[in-house]
């Protein structure tokens, strides 16, 4: 190592020299204030080449690009959801609330061919509680719960942070529930009738 770097310099001219070099440094930065760092993605080959200029990012007006497959806000494609409740069970912060109602009729299949048997009158994810761990997306059997590259979604009212993904209106949900009740009553009645018939026989 160069000895002169370590040597303690105290002479008058050394002090002046160091004052001048400090002043030069800040002046250089001041003079380069007309340049700005461009918001570019890390894979850009100039990413580490931007040594000069202001580094501040005026965020709402400009933003650093995020990866195409950024894993931020959750999204549920409810058409493909089989309401299996796996995501709600694995969530470490319990921010997914699912209520399920058995379908009385055939409600079709998901895009990967899984048969749907349940309606979801409630499918809420509280984004304010979510820690974006992504566990729910890995357990989802139909890959309908995914993370999107959207990361800026503040709300004035915290209630709006609860995202509702259900495709049923409350009326429709009530209707489905009544249908299910009716079907269950009918089935119970049929069962009772069958039981009575068997008793009579026996």
């Amino acid at each position, binding site marked *: 190592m160069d000895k002169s770097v370590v040597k303690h310099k105290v002479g008058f001219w050394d002090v002046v020299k160091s004052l001048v070099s*400090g*002043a030069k440094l*800040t*002046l250089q930065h001041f003079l380069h*204030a007309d340049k700005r760092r461009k918001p570019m993605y890390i894979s850009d080959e100039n990413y580490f080449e931007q040594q000069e200029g202001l*580094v*501040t990012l*005026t965020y709402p007006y400009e933003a650093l690009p995020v990866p195409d497959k950024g894993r931020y806000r959750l999204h549920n494609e409810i058409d493909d959801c089989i309401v299996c409740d796996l995501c709600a069970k694995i969530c470490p912060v319990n921010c997914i609330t699912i209520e399920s109602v058995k379908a009385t009729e055939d409600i079709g299949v998901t895009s990967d061919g899984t048969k749907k048997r349940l309606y979801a009158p409630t499918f809420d994810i509280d984004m304010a509680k979510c820690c974006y761990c992504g566990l729910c997306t890995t357990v989802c059997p139909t890959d309908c719960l995914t993370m999107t590259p959207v990361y800026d979604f503040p709300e004035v009212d915290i209630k709006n942070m609860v995202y509702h993904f259900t495709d049923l209106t409350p009326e429709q949900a009530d209707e489905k529930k009544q249908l299910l009740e009716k079907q269950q009553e009918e089935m119970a009645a049929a069962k009772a009738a069958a039981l009575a018939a068997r008793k009579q026989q026996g």
Partner: protein
Amino acid sequence: MALLAFVLTISLMLLIVIVVVYAERKVAAFMQDRLGPTEAGPYGTLQPLLDVLKLLQKEDIIPAAADKKMFAVAPILIFAAVFAGFAVIPLSPSLVPAGVGIGVFYLLAIISLDVIGLLMAGWGSNNKYAMLGAMRSVAQIVSYEIPAGLALLSVVMICQSLDFQEISYQQGVLMNLFPGLEQEQNWLFGLKALGFETTTVGGLTTWNIFRAPILLVAFVIYFIASLAECNRAPFDIPEAESELVAGFHVEYSGFRFATFFLAEYAMMVLVCLVAVILFLGSWNTPLPNFGPLALANWTTGTPGGMASVLWGGFWLISKTLVLLFVQLWARWTYPRLRVDQLMHLCWKVLTPIAIGLVLLAGIWRLLMV
């Protein structure tokens, strides 16, 4: 006329202060590769104005254990002291709010009152940080008044006058128009022996730092001491954000804090104005006359005319802004000194050099006539 001068001075002062506050934030930001204020007004230009408005709306808190009278009077006293200093500053060849013959002396005296205000604020707050800040501040300002005063004394000896306006006239092509200076002559570097007369050349050659080059050293000493006198970095130990929070004004809020804030920046402006007037040619143009190319005459005007007022104000203020930029530049470059280093610099370096300068200035004056 007196009222007009008062209004003119206070509005000019507030305008420059606002510009300096804005410049401070922008310069600091640029030197640290940041953007500074951008949202309030175009490029954030309304930021200082809005800051002051915000401060005026805030509650005026007076601590229960404070010495209420002292606490209340201190900011006003400081502001009054600084503002009174502006009264003797000549703005152009024919415009000076109060043309007293002993301006330099008056200015030094009135600015010293500042110290009493600081001590009142620190003592009255009944807060240990404020007290420490005030103590440091007083020790620092009183010490640095000595090299600053000696540096100014050498100018006074060279110019043989305590009148700011007379000193201003001496540093330009208009010298012989000042009553009492009709027969005076300026020589290059103040050396008559060189035989090069600059009375009609004007411009840079007649600025005090060229009339008597030793004043260049005096200028540097005065500038360093003036940084310490207005508690600016690298001599900001009285305010030392990181150790004393804000020093003597830690307990102040609202309007009273705004007054401190304005006084601090007004003080910066004032010391720079004084440096410009005494060393850098006052309201005189930096452009000299080259034979038929009478640049100095063209950029000066004749005293009494509108042109001279505008040119005078323009040169004075632009030179002041340059010095203010140097102050900001120093603040955002150098780290704060320790108390012992501060005192070492003042008593063992600046003061002896300044005393030597006073002696040399006397000898130089003999060479000038």
